[in-house]
């Protein structure tokens, strides 16, 4: 059975795992929190499993076939629009 201290540590960690994995510049974890989280993940199977699931989900979403992606012909036409706007200013 988990102690109250372990429960608190897991709760604290679970709230930071996504920010830790994202490392987004808007919400970087402070270095001391990263150290604390990594220390917890090294010894907690439950939080380590949660982290693995988030990593797997992120990989799956990155390569998801349902993503709508641009085609080269559209990009070429849009580059022409940029060219045209730039030319207008020069003339």
């Amino acid at each position, binding site marked *: 059975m988990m102690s109250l201290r372990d429960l608190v540590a897991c709760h604290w960690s679970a709230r930071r795992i996504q*920010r830790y994995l994202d490392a987004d510049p808007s919400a970087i974890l402070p270095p001391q929190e990263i150290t604390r989280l990594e220390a917890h993940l090294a010894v907690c199977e439950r939080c380590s499993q949660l982290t693995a699931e988030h990593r797997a989900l992120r990989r799956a*979403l*990155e390569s998801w*076939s349902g993503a*709508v992606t641009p085609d080269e012909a559209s990009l070429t036409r849009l*580059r022409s629009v940029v060219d045209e*706007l730039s030319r207008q200013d020069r003339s």
Partner: protein
Amino acid sequence: MSGKRDEPPSGSDPVSQPSAPPDTRAEAFREHVEPELEVMLRVALSLTGRRPDAEDLLQESLVRAYKALDRFDGRHPRAWLLTIVRHTHLNMHRRQRPGTLADWDALGDPRPAFGANRQASAEDTVLDGTLDNQLHDAIRELSPKFRAVLILVDVQDLSYAEAAATLGIPVGTVMSRLSRARDRIRRRLGVQTLTPGRS
């Protein structure tokens, strides 16, 4: 491409600057816009769900960006451009709910995308085979506002700040919606599907 390396926008109001000479102005426009065209188009596709509409939206957005160039302070061009795309889209489609993307039926395009450049590793191939259909269903079940942030950040690889600029919502709202969307999908897919070798 990764939007995560970009700094977040510092504010919503661009700083006014004196008009640049035409040549400099044209060069500045090209310098700011060309590197962002692909991400702008991906976001426009997510917003509209249809390729012709996405191109129309971007053409209009580019014209507006060019007109607004003198009021742009030169920082965070991607967030600036995505904000213009959002405003243009709202003007063109006033009935769309704010903070959401196109209807699911338009978004969930199962066809292999022309021009897509995705080098699948062996691991990705396994993941695709096991997860892809379940992932599709799980994303479909999300409410539009949760689906929007998940697609922009995790599928289209925008940063929190860029997704916030695209949807017109605060960064904190992006983070909370993203967290809940991921948790819902993670629970829906289950441990065995996501991490079969571990559990």
